[in-house]
């Protein structure tokens, strides 16, 4: 205990040794607190406290003892107060230490903060660099799009100064640079060349312009010259100019019409004098159409590619958007487009070919003109005819009325159906039927889509889309011949009917045999008849049962009288006359009604009239109708002359020369006229 005390005192005394100033003391104490171990101080403090406790106990013990004296505890009290001093010292040291600790903590904190800041800076820098690297990696230069000369060729052609093979062979970058440099070099050269060329071009075009101007100034002179030569041309009969004009328009014809025109023209020029072929219609429109088709044929390819490109560039979303917007646009104008398309489908080519055939032998003033139209969208040809002639009678007009001549040139070719099987579906798209189409053609004067017209233009629907030139060559003469025959026959027929309407039967005399017979019956009426009237007449039922009459035929009614007898004749002129002859049927009113249904003699008469054919008319084959009428009138005479004597009073007696009024079991009458030298006699048909 005393050691400890001593040491304590020594220690404290050491401190007390140089207590010069307050600062120094504080400094010392600070130093001391740093030097001393806190743990040891703690132990010192605890032992001091323990010692003090025991001392207090001793003091308390001694105080409790009887006879307490202050002096008894004086030592202890002194020691105890020394301990207090120690405690105080320790406390101060502790205070210093705490303050010191705080300071150092503060210092550490600042250091940590600055370190963290530094770290963050570094991280940011790292990420920035990384991004830079990415950028670098993604870097693309324009040079990649440049088509460079291939390597081999580069080394062969490029200048040594640029290519420097010794250096670039190893280093690909250098090689590329060299290649680019070479490219640049070449381009520069080409650009200069281009410039040179354009200058040259300008020069040439300037020259051209000058020359053109000169030529243009020549044009009026030339036209003047042409005008001046015109009288000469006409005087010499050289219609070259018209030919040239036509050639120009012919070039604008669509292919089928062109083929047809060329063939028809060739045939007309070489073989058929009566045939003339021309191109008519709106030339300007045709030109425009030509250009349009030319344009529409080329640009779509480009625009297609462009749109494809766009599509490639756009991603899915924008494409969808675009699609949507276009479909909306369609909805708005759908109706209009529909109508437009419909119009386009039904629109004929603005040009059409017109060929006209002049009547022959005595009918020179009459001509038939046939217009041939082409419908490009439907690939159909339609034909219509116009007849120009003089003196048309009331009922005769029907004979040559429009369409009738070119109707049924071939069996069942009435132009009532579309010849192109595809067109039905094309029309259906626009809610049109074939009938609508035919009506449309009719109302617009485009005629009818006859099969022969298609063939004439080389359109063969069996072998689709093949134009058969040889077919046209074969067909043209055939059609022309058919139309010519039919037209002439019709003209002749019209003349006959004209005169028959006026009860003028002078034409009959042209046939020699008939002229030698005195006809005592007379024609009192000739009128036209409708199809319905004809088929509803009781005597015509046999013809209708056998389908010998069609609504395309032309019908007439003639009345022949002799005395009290009246013969009503119904005549059907078939649409394909003159291939088929006119058909007659009779109804005789005389002592009852006689028809071919109840009287065999009338049936004989009917047969005899109907069996008269063109081949039997040697002198004038064109007057078949009149000849038939003459035969009918003679037959009526014969019938009445043979039948008459049986009736009383006798109205008719024999006037003509025949051997037997009746013959064979059928009691046939002598309707047949036989030349007997000086006169004619009548014999039985069979």
């Amino acid at each position: 205990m005393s050691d400890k005390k001593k040491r304590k005192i020594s220690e404290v005394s050491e401190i007390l040794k140089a207590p010069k100033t307050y600062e120094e003391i504080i400094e010392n104490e600070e130093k001391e607190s740093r030097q001393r171990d806190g743990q040891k101080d703690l132990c010192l403090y605890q032992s001091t406290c323990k010692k003090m406790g025991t001392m207090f106990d001793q003091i308390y013990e001694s105080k409790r003892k009887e006879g307490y004296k202050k002096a008894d505890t004086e030592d202890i009290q002194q020691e105890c107060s020394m301990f207090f001093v120690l405690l105080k010292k320790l406390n101060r040291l502790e205070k210093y230490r705490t303050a010191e600790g705080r300071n150092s903590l503060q210092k550490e904190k600042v250091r940590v903060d600055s370190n963290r800041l530094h770290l963050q800076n570094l991280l940011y820098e790292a990420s920035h660099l990384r991004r830079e690297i990415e950028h670098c990696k993604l870097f693309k230069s324009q040079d990649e799009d440049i088509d460079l000369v291939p390597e081999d060729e580069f080394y062969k052609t490029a200048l040594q100064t640029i290519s420097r093979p010794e250096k670039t062979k190893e280093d690909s970058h250098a090689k590329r640079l060299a290649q680019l440099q070479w490219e640049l070099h070449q381009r520069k050269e080409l650009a200069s060349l281009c410039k040179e060329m354009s200058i040259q071009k300008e020069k040439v075009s300037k020259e051209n312009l000058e020359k053109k101007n000169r030529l243009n100034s020549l044009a009026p002179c030339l036209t003047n010259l042409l005008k001046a030569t015109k009288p000469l041309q006409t005087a010499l009969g050289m219609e070259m100019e018209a030919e040239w004009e036509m050639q120009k328009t012919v070039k604008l014809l669509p292919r089928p019409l062109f083929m047809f025109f060329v063939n028809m023209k060739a045939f007309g020029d070489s073989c058929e004098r009566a045939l003339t072929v021309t191109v008519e219609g709106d030339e300007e429109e045709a030109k425009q159409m030509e250009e349009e088709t030319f344009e529409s044929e080329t640009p779509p390819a480009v625009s297609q590619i462009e749109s494809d490109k766009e599509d490639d560039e756009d991603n899915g979303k924008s494409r969808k958007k675009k699609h949507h917007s276009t479909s909306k646009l369609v909805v708005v104008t759908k109706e209009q487009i529909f109508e437009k398309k419909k119009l386009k489908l039904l629109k004929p080519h603005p040009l059409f070919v017109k060929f006209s055939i002049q009547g022959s032998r005595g009918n020179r003033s009459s001509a038939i003109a046939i217009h041939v139209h082409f419908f490009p969208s439907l690939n159909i040809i339609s034909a219509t005819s116009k007849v120009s002639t003089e003196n048309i009678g009331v009922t005769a007009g029907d004979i040559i009325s429009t369409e009738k001549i070119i109707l049924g040139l071939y069996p069942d070719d009435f132009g009532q159906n579309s010849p192109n099987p595809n067109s039905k579906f094309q029309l259906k798209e626009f809610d049109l039927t074939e009938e609508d189409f035919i009506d449309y053609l009719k109302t617009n004067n485009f005629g009818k889509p006859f099969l022969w017209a298609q063939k004439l233009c080389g359109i063969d629907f069996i072998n689709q889309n093949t134009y058969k030139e040889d077919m046209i060559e074969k067909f043209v003469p055939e059609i022309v011949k058919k139309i010519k025959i039919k037209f002439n026959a019709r003209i002749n027929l019209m003349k006959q009917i004209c005169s028959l309407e006026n009860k003028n039967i002078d034409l009959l005399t042209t046939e020699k045999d008939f002229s030698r017979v005195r006809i005592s019956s007379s024609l009192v009426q000739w009128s036209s008849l409708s199809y319905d009237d004809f088929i509803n007449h009781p005597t015509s039922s046999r013809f209708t049962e056998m389908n010998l009459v069609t609504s395309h035929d032309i019908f007439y009614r003639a009345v022949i009288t002799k005395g009290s007898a009246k013969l009503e004749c119904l005549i059907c002129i078939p649409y394909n006359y003159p291939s088929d002859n006119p058909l007659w049927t009779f109804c005789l009113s005389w002592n009852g009604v006689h028809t071919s249904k109840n009287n065999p003699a009338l049936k004989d008469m009917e047969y005899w009239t109907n069996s008269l054919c063109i081949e039997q008319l040697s002198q004038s084959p064109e007057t078949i109708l009149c000849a038939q009428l003459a035969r009918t009138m003679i037959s009526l005479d014969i019938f009445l002359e043979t039948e008459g004597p049986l009736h009383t009073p006798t109205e008719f007696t024999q006037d003509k020369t025949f051997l037997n009024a009746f013959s064979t079991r059928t009691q046939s009458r002598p309707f047949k006229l036989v030349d007997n030298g000086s006169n004619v006699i009548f014999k039985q048909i069979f």
Partner: protein
Amino acid sequence: MMESKLKKLYNNVVSQAISTSGKFLFAGNVFSDIFVFEINEILNSLDEPQQPKIYPQNAGLISSLEFHNDFLIVGGKGSIYGLKFNESTNELSKDKSWEVFLAEGKSVNYFWLNKADNDLFAGCDNNIIYQVSLEDGRVVRKFEGHKDFIHCLTGSDDQIYSASQDGTLKIWDPRENGFIHEIEPQKKHELKRPEFGGFLGSCAISNDWLICGGGPKLSLWNTKTLEYSPIDFGFPGKIHCSYFIDDNIVIGGTHPSVQIYSINGDLKYDLPVENSPAIYSIVFQTEPQKIMTLAGYSNQLNVLSDFRYVDIILDLYK
């Protein structure tokens, strides 16, 4: 084209014949065509009407046909000739087996075949009846006396009956030179129909009875006494053919129906034939198959399998 139409429109069948076997029917028309039908086919193929075989001739109007042994005898203009017919192949020979020229180029209107003597009697348009022996093709004799052409012929063992356009029915005995009897129905007031003329278009006999008619009404006569039986047959048209079928009489002519009367004048059946203005030929048989065909101025052949109504109509030209 036109010709075939005309043929169809104005076909006129004036003669028919049935083969000896009763299996084939022949028909001849004014256009000189012979149609051959198989009777069995006609009667049995109702759904698909039989198309006849057509054999064109060059004989003018084929006004009479008759079948003898295996020959079809054709009466044309100015001649009669035989065509061999092969029944097993249904082929009519195209070559004439024989030909006899008669009638001065005029038609041979009617045949009557005397099967017992192999003699053919041909009534012609030149007013003469020729007796032709089918043994040697010789014209045995001519019967002259009619003033107009012969319409119809019939005969019995020893007598020939002929009806003519001249209005008389003449009865001939082959052993006698001229005709032995003559009747003229148009002279009887009740038979006369002046608007039809006085001609006799048809005659037929059966044992005791003779019928004849044409312009005048059909009249019934006793063959032995040649007495007129005043029975009125109401057929309204001209008469071109009339036959006895058992006790009935069938009449055809220019009337829209063929009529069957009983011998006492009652109309038993009226057979409408609307397709023709006149019937010129009626043939019938009861064995081996019952059939009657009516032909006339039409392209259609009317067939009766029951003699009471027309049940089949066949087209001749297609």
